[in-house]
Every structure is written in structure tokens, then in C-alpha cells.
């Protein structure tokens, strides 16, 4: 296997990590805001706060990893994507900034303001929507090279049905992933009232998730036939993914093995996400940039991979410690211990 493929796989893995962890976070924020405004705060607030509190900072780092790694492994992507993404990503940054800082302001500054909570909840859905634009752009057709410089075609992008299908998928899957995770989390906490509410959310968002995913594949057929053909060549990956989707929904429906339902969801999204990634190969930006013409020199690639392995060896035990203390610690999850910070 060559270094470019190792590099892109590592980055794709980080992006997958970000998508799962951030989805849980964004969705939790939305449900929390929704329950606040719908006056069902007492049921959900506690369980969501216990999960979010120690983890909010960690989420962002996955995203930073992805784009820093992108510039490291594929410096040309900094040139192409840096130039065309100025407006969409600036909007994402502003939303991320508002959401991230207001979480801290509100939790630690201890002031409950409905306006903040509303902003926080809505920002959580707008962020995935704005970030998902990058995937749309990577499909090609929205960039034109003027002189030497790439330019984003805002009109084409805005009026493309593909853009909106991907936006819809990003939003509904955030809600689906988050609700499923929180159902399992509430089950561990033995907070059955919260679990029932979240389970209903999870089931409600499962249908839209699978439908919008199908819609995207169908639209790719019109938009980027090469990519569509590649997807069809590995149709079995997406088929497997659908099977795991059915397993998750079945378990949720039957109120059985909630944790397993969540792991099955991870596998479902993992298969679809890597299937999508593989079928996108070799393009980073269709048709201008492939992973090979954008790749860094061998010395840097090796250094990055070594740094990555060393860093991973440092992080994995730390993450496990964090998870042991806050995610898989029944006393903490149930909130039985005294808490003062």
C-alpha cells in the first residue's frame, strides 16, 4: 500500500470519528434545547448534561486533526479547498465558535437564558449542514478554474438538488446518531423516563436517515456518473450497511440490548462512510485533484505517520481513562456522586 492511501485512510478515520462524536454532541444540544422550549426539560436535561460536560472540548479536536492532517498529507488541497471554501468554512467557524464558547459560558457561568439555549441548539444543526457542503463540492461541477485560480460557483451550488440532499442527510443523521447514543446512555444510567423519550426520537429519525442516504446515491447518478458507477461496483458494502441499519432499528423497537444497537449503528455508518470514501477514490476534488497529485513528499509523509503513531499511543490511554471515568462509570453516569467543580 502506498503512503498516499495510508494518509487518506488515517484522515478519513479521523473524519469518521469526528462525525460520530460531533453528531452525538450536536444532537444532544438540539434535544436539550428542544426539551427546554417544550417544557420537558426535567426528563432530558440531566442525562444530556452529564454526558456533555466533560467532553465538549474533545469533539472539536477531531475536526482540527482532520484539516491539519489534510494540509500535511495533501498540501495542494490547502490551495484548492482553501481558495474555494473561504465563505462556507468561515460560516462554519463562526457557528462552531458561538456554539463552543456559549456552552462554556452557560454551563460554568451558570445563567440559563432561553435565547442562548435556542442559539446553541440551532447552531448544532447548522454546523453539520455547512460542513457537509465540502462533500458536495468535492463531487465536482461547482468549481471553475479562472486564470490560475479555482473559483466556487455559488449559484450552481445553491440550486443543486445534490447540495440539499446532502444537507438533509447531515442534519437527520445527526439527530439519529445522537438519539440512539443517548438512548443507550440513559439505559446505562437507568433513567428510563429519558430513555423512552430518546428512543422515540431515535426511531423517528431512522427513516429519514436511510431515505436521504438513498436519495443521494440516486442523485449522484445524474451529477457524477463515475462516482455512481464506483458505488455500484461495491454495492455490497452499502447493502451490509443497510442490514446493520435494520438491526439497530429492530433492537430499538424491541427495547433490547441498547448498547449493541448503538454499536450496530456505528458499523452501519462506518460501512457507508468508508464505502463512500473508497468510491470517491482517487479524487480529492473531482476532477482537478487526486490524492496522488496532491500528495506531500515522502520524508514528510513518513514523519507524519510516525508522529501519528506516537501521538496515538499517547492519546488512546488518555481517551480510555476519560471514557472510564465519565462514559462507562455507572456511578458517574447515574449522577450518584457529589459533584462540585
Amino acid at each position, binding site marked *: 500500500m502506498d503512503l498516499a492511501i495510508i494518509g487518506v485512510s488515517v484522515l478519513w478515520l479521523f473524519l469518521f470519528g469526528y462525525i460520530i462524536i460531533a453528531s452525538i454532541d450536536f444532537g444532544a444540544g438540539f434535544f436539550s434545547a428542544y426539551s427546554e422550549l417544550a417544557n420537558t426539560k426535567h426528563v432530558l436535561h440531566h442525562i444530556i448534561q452529564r454526558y456533555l460536560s*466533560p*467532553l465538549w*472540548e*474533545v469533539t*472539536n*479536536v477531531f475536526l*482540527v*486533526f482532520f*484539516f*491539519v*492532517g489534510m*494540509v*500535511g498529507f495533501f*498540501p*495542494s488541497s*490547502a*490551495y484548492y*479547498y*482553501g*481558495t*474555494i471554501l*473561504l*465563505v462556507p*468554512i*468561515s460560516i462554519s*467557524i*463562526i457557528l*462552531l*465558535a*458561538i456554539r*463552543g*464558547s456559549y*456552552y*462554556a*459560558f452557560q454551563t*460554568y*457561568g*451558570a*445563567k440559563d437564558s432561553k435565547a442562548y439555549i435556542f442559539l446553541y441548539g440551532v447552531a448544532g444543526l447548522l454546523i453539520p449542514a455547512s460542513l457537509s457542503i465540502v462533500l458536495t463540492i468535492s463531487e465536482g461541477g461547482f468549481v471553475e478554474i479562472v486564470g490560475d*485560480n479555482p473559483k*466556487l460557483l455559488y449559484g450552481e451550488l445553491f440550486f443543486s438538488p445534490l447540495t440539499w440532499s446532502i444537507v438533509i442527510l447531515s442534519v437527520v443523521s445527526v439527530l439519529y446518531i445522537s438519539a440512539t447514543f443517548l438512548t443507550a446512555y440513559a439505559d446505562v444510567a437507568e433513567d428510563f423516563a429519558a430513555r423512552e423519550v430518546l428512543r422515540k426520537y431515535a426511531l423517528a429519525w431512522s427513516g429519514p436517515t436511510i431515505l436521504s442516504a438513498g436519495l443521494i446515491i440516486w442523485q449522484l447518478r445524474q451529477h457524477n456518473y463515475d462516482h455512481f458507477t464506483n458505488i455500484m461496483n461495491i454495492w455490497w458494502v452499502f447493502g451490509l450497511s443497510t442490514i446493520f441499519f435494520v438491526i439497530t432499528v429492530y433492537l430499538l423497537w424491541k427495547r433490547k440490548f441498547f448498547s449493541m444497537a448503538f454499536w450496530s449503528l456505528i458499523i452501519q455508518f462506518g460501512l457507508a462512510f468508508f464505502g463512500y470514501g473508497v468510491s470517491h477514490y482517487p479524487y480529492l476534488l473531482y476532477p482537478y485533484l487526486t490524492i496522488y497529485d496532491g500528495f*506531500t*513528499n515522502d*520524508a*514528510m509523509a513518513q*514523519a*507524519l505517520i510516525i*508522529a501519528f503513531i506516537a*501521538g496515538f499511543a*499517547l*492519546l488512546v490511554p*488518555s*481517551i480510555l*481513562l*476519560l471514557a472510564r*471515568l*465519565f462514559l462507562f462509570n455507572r456511578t458517574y453516569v447515574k449522577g450518584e*456522586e457529589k459533584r*462540585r*467543580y
Partner: protein
Amino acid sequence: MEYDPVFFSRTLTGLTLAFHILYATIGVGVPLMIAITQWIGIKKNDEHYILLARRWTRGFVITVAVGVVTGTAIGLQLSLLWPNFMELAGHVISLPLFMETFAFFFEAIFLGIYLYTWDRFENQKKHMLLLIPVAIGASFSAFFITMVNAFMNTPQGFDIVNGALVNVDPIAAMFNPATPTKVAHVLTTAYMTSAFVLASIAAFHLFKGRDHIYHKKALYLMMKVGLIFSIATVIVGDFSGKFLAEYQPEKLAAAEWHFETEEAAPLVLFGWLDDEGEIRGAIEIPYALSILAHGDPTAEVTGLNEFPEEDHPPYIVHYFFDLMVAIGMWLTFISAFYWLAVRRKWKVIKNKVFNFVLVLSGPLSMIAIEMGWFYAEFGRQPWILRGFMRTPEGATSAAYVDTMLWLFAGLYLVLGTASIVVLIRMFKKNPVEKELADHANERGER
């Protein structure tokens, strides 16, 4: 005016950095202060120090949040505003950028654990140990990021043959000649600034007439730590002068308005340039520039006129440099004076005006940080990568950079105001006197 993406890219980057650096400096320095204070509290078995550490941590979380989101902003803006530069730099210097993320990740994880486990440990010492990875992570973040900035000043670790990058050596790029002094300077000043900011808060309470021993302990400890790091900063500053004289003589010469190469060069403080380009109204310290540059009062210092005019940094950096140095010197003096005054029990420490002067140390040290970075960045102009790429060549060609500038200016205004309001409210609502009384009650009940 015609739309000029280069101008707006520079302004937006400058704005983001100027805002981010305030929070980043606190983020690097304060964990060490919390660790020192908590450790003293455990050693002396003094609950005042423990409470200090606790209260600082609560405030720290707010500043970290702003630091994280603005750090994400600058991380992305590097590619969004300087795509041509990042394409080149990505080939050579992305390794420390990548490692910075790991360092920050490490810090974030342990900070989260530290925050939520104050009462989980029977043994306070074990809880304090969690701060070590936080402080290490924070300092290593600064270490790696500063390396990238150092690389922009003295790039090495690659060759350009026929326009293509060859022989890339990421390690050589990281440990370029600017790295040692720059990293040392960033770290010592971050510790120094954090100590003075925390000292300012204590001095403010004393100035307001709150006479609790808690505030006196805080002020004395942070002034002492501030003094130690001020002295360290002076020493590092001296090395930085020698580094500049050897590797970036035009940057030093611009800071000093040193136009003609000469021996036994004087240090020029402030003043202004008249229409003929003559320096007016400046204070001259004889031999001082030669000492700063080469450690020898008679040594020859290269003047700015040796360089083509198009390579001159803007002359305004003279003021940035002088303000930074003047504030640094003042803070070293005032903290040394305060330390002596406490030891000798001079009456002046009870004086209101003197307390007010101490309150100014925090804001002053922040101004010095800003001036230092303004000097570092303006002083490197016209280059974005010295000797290889001029700033306009690195900038984006995209439209709407001006609109983004306004959006981000609004964002920073909101974040800056909100973080200050939240901090003030947080501590006003729960004053230390009340918290100490609560603790005493709790013990009484037991």
C-alpha cells in the same frame, strides 16, 4: 477603493491572531500557576491556596473555551486566507502543526478530567497530578506552534530546484535557527503574563479595600512568580537580540531605527522620523544596541541601509518593539520592588495608589504580548516565508474576504464581551469571602 484580497487577508489574520493570543497566552500560562498554587496549598496545608487554585480553574475554563474556538478559527484561516503559502509550507512544516493538535488534545482530555474530579480523590495530591499533563500539553502546544512561526522567519530543511521542492527534512525545518529563542521567549512571557494577570486580580480586590489575607497571599505569590519569569524573559530577550543580529539583521535594525552600519551602536528609544528620515526626540542609550546584538559594546551592528528598500520592514515596528521592552522592564522593576517591600515590611504596600499601579501589571503585560507579536509579524514583512515567498504571493485570490473580515470582527466582539461579562458575573456572584465562610460552616457541621 478596489477590492484587494491581500489587504483584507492580512487584516483578518492580524485581527484573529491579536484576539486569539490574549486567550492563548492565558491558556499556556495559567495551568502552571494553578499547579504551583495547589501544590503550595497541599504543602502548607493552607485552604486559601487550594481555593485560589479552584477559583482560577473555574475562570480558566471560560478563557480556554474562547482560546479553543479562536484557535480553530486561525487554524482554518491559515488555509482559507493563505492557500498559496500553505501549499508550500505544508510540504515542509506541517509536522509541528500536526503535533500541536496532539498536544492540545492531551491537554483538553486531562483538563476535562481535572475539572470534574475535584471531590473524587481522597488524596488531593493525586488530583493535582492531573494538572501536570494539562500544563505539559499547553506548553507543548505553544512549543509546536511557535516552531511554525520560527520557520516563517528562518526557513530551512528544504531546497528549491527548478521551482520544485526537494530534499525536505521536516526535523531540520522544525529546529530552525529561530526556534530556540522564539520558543523560550513565548513560554517565559506566557508564564510571566499569566502571573501578572492573576496578580492584578488580587491587587484589584485589595485596591477596592477587601482586606482578606486570601488576596494578599495571592498577590504575593503571583508577584513572586511574575518576577522570576520577568527575569527569565530579560535573559531570553538578550539571546533573541543576538539571534536577530545574526539571522535577521534587518528585523533588528528596523526595530531600532538603526540605518547606518556602525560600531558601538546606541539603542534608540521612541522618538520619531522627520521628513528627511532623521530621528528626532529619541532617547539614546550609548553602546546598548551593540551589547544587545553582539554582547560587546564596540561591536559593529548591521544597519537597515545595507538592505534594498523593498525588503525593509515597516518602520512602525520600532514603537512595537520599544513598548514591549519598556513594559517588560517596568514589570520586572515593579515586581522586584513589591517583593522587597513585602519582605522589608515597607508601608507602601498598603498604599492605594501603589495598589492601583499593581492592578495595571496584568493589562500592561497583555499589551506587551500584543506589541511583541505585532513586532514579530510586521517585522518579518515583506515576507511571509522569509527569502522565499512575499506576503502578497501567499494570499488568497477569493472574493468576499472583506465581508468575512466584518463577520469575524463581529464574532470577536461578541466573544470578547461575553467572556468578560461571564467571568465578572461568575466571581461577583460567589465572592471568595462567602465561599470561605461556606467551607468553614461545612466543617463546623461535621
